[in-house]
């Protein structure tokens, strides 16, 4: 980067949006990667969580800002990362004060990012943090390759899932052409292979709740509830149509929105649980649903991550598709399906649904049938009890009641 300062100025009406979206990002990851690039035509803030099972990217377009660094050189200028913790305190200040002006200053010389808050009464507060130059954070996924796509207002989605307690680790979506069910993951598998059937409830939605409902493949996917709730924290501020893209287990679910009138858009990619092979990691149910595959990513994988081509938000570009976490990002899709095939042979007996082969999209009917049958038995809205529930009622369920 050149030895100069990049200054972005936000008008007061956009400050709240900026603060709120950045607040969501600080919750979803430990470091925030910032990139200013002419290719994306915006300033993007990205983060991925520690286990690399979620990826988030929010891009602010040129019009979001009142002032934009004047530089007509057609090359990428800012590529750095900052600590999410430091960012959180700055964002907290942004959200709690009434600002007349907010400036972001990237000082290349000192490797310092300053949030300059112009508050009322001529008070100026500056929160600054160090940044580290790095390569951009990028996940590979192809939005066009997903078979299912639904759009729903984010506030509606928030209301539907509001009563799901944050203590639950995962949330399951079962979608068919006629129904969209949001529920808790069916069972918890403990260390000693004992299965606990616990209290469950579900929300059943009809397609007319959605702005857009296009299901071509009956899905049953499970992903992390906690991060999903953080994401929906944005819904209070912006009630926007949010598009969900998903299909088979193991493939990540993508949430994206485009706030055209506010000049920014966001994309969130969460890993979903694939079929487990035999024993489940006990920590799986406790916190991160990152055990999508055999191993989680480490730093080396992240390096490979960055070598991929960009697949930017809202644009249809070719790119290899892969879910955010995987055993090795360098695998092509062919290899991935090999792994999936291995999984089918060691299927967890509790999981009735097989994984599918990516390329083999036509053989989904089996799974679809299975799913359908299960659904028709469980078409009760509200409490759904398992047989062993009396014995296994835990504290959580008590609170639910």
């Amino acid at each position, binding site marked *: 980067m050149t030895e100069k300062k990049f200054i972005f100025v936000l008008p007061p009406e956009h400050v709240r949006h900026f603060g709120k979206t950045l607040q969501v990002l600080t919750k979803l990851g430990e470091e925030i990667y910032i990139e200013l690039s002419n290719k994306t035509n915006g300033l993007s803030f990205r983060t991925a969580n520690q286990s690399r099972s979620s990826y988030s990217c929010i891009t602010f377009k040129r019009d979001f800002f009142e002032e934009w660094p004047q530089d007509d050189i057609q090359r990428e200028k800012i590529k750095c990362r900052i*600590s999410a*913790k*430091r960012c959180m*305190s700055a964002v*907290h*200040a942004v959200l*709690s*004060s009434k600002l007349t002006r907010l400036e972001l200053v990237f000082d290349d010389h000192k490797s*310092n990012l300053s949030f300059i808050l112009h*508050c009322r*009464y*001529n*008070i*100026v*507060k*500056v*929160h*600054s*943090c*160090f940044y580290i130059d790095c390569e951009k954070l990028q996940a590979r996924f192809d939005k066009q390759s997903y078979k299912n796509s639904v759009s729903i207002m984010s506030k509606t989605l928030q209301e539907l899932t509001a009563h799901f307690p944050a203590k639950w680790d995962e949330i399951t979506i079962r979608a068919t052409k006629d129904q969209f069910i949001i529920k808790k993951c069916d069972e918890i598998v403990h260390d000693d292979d004992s299965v606990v059937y616990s209290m469950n409830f579900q929300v059943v939605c009809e397609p007319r709740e959605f702005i857009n409902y296009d299901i071509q493949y009956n899905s049953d996917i499970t992903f992390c509830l906690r991060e999903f709730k953080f994401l929906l924290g944005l819904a209070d501020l912006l009630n926007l149509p949010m598009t969900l893209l998903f299909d088979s287990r193991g493939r990540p679910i993508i949430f994206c929105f485009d706030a055209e009138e506010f000049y920014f858009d966001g994309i969130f990619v969460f890993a979903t649980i694939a079929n487990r092979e035999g024993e489940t990691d006990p920590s799986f149910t406790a916190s991160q649903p990152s055990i999508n595959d055999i191993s989680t990513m480490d730093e080396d994988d992240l390096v490979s991550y960055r070598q991929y081509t960009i697949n930017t938000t809202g644009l249809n570009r070719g790119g290899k598709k892969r879910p955010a976490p995987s055993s090795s990002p360098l695998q092509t899709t062919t290899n991935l399906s090999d792994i999936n095939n291995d999984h089918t042979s060691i299927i967890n007996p509790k999981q009735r649904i097989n994984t599918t082969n990516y390329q083999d999209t036509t053989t989904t009917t089996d799974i679809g049938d299975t799913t359908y049958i299960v659904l028709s038995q469980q078409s009760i809205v509200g409490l759904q009890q398992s047989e062993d529930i009396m014995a296994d009622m835990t504290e959580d369920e008590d609170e639910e009641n």
Partner: protein
Amino acid sequence: MSLFDTHQEDTDEEEDNNVQKQEPTDGGDDIAFIAKLKSSRTLASILKTIHFADDAIFCALPTGIKIIVEDKQCVQGNAFIDTRVFESYELTKQVRFRFHLETVLNCLNIFGIPLDPVTHEPLPTNVAVQIHYRENQTHPLQLYLEEEGVITECLIKVLDDTDTIDFDFQTENVVTKVVFKSNGFKEALSEIDLKADCIELIITQDVPHFRLIANGCGGCTSVDITQDSPVMDTFLCTEPVHNRYKTQFFQYIVRALSIASKLSLRIDAAGILCAQFLIYTEKDKPSLVEYFFGPDEELNDIEDNTQASDVVLIED
């Protein structure tokens, strides 16, 4: 102000709760001091702002009450409540003693602290308080609190008096003086990183006139207030000041800001910071709370060390 004999209680005295407020039951001992306040909140809120140590020194003077609290020899908080704030104030003899601050605060709040449902700030109460003190060393400090006909009598042991630090704040040698409106200043301090070790205070004649910097890990937070800000009432600066003070001092400042209407910061040539808060409680006469902080010596030490090491290099 003269130091009197120290008073120490040998035994506790138990009395019934139907003691009349007006007159003490046994005569003979001279009452050194009686003061009556319409609302206990007045005294309680002021004492709360300087409640950063266990003990406090109580001085009854002709001009009013002065309470001194010290912490580890590096910060001193004084509260002055003028005689005109009191409903009645009778002083026969100047007294000075040490008492346990938390006990007195609990007694003053014995009828509870009603909070405003919206702002959660303590509301003024109609608990009247009367303070009696006799010079005789067998008698404790007597507090009588009354609310709606219920009287509570509190007898608090007093302790030996101790010396207090004299910061020797050179009022004639004040280098800079800034007066702020407290609610605006509170807003300015609201986001300052209080986890940092120390806070740098820079006051200069040029822009920015007043700046506080807190260096945390991974970055720093700073607040600038310019001279023309409506928050700043007065600004005087004869020479630029750049000092460091411990962060906890600013926590005390923030605490006192919640009941003050104005804050004055003065720094003398030695770097000692005197923060004075103007507090209006009942009546029109304000009370005053002031803090004295010594600057953190680290800044100067670092400079000295650097100079020493330079000398070594040259010699080599």
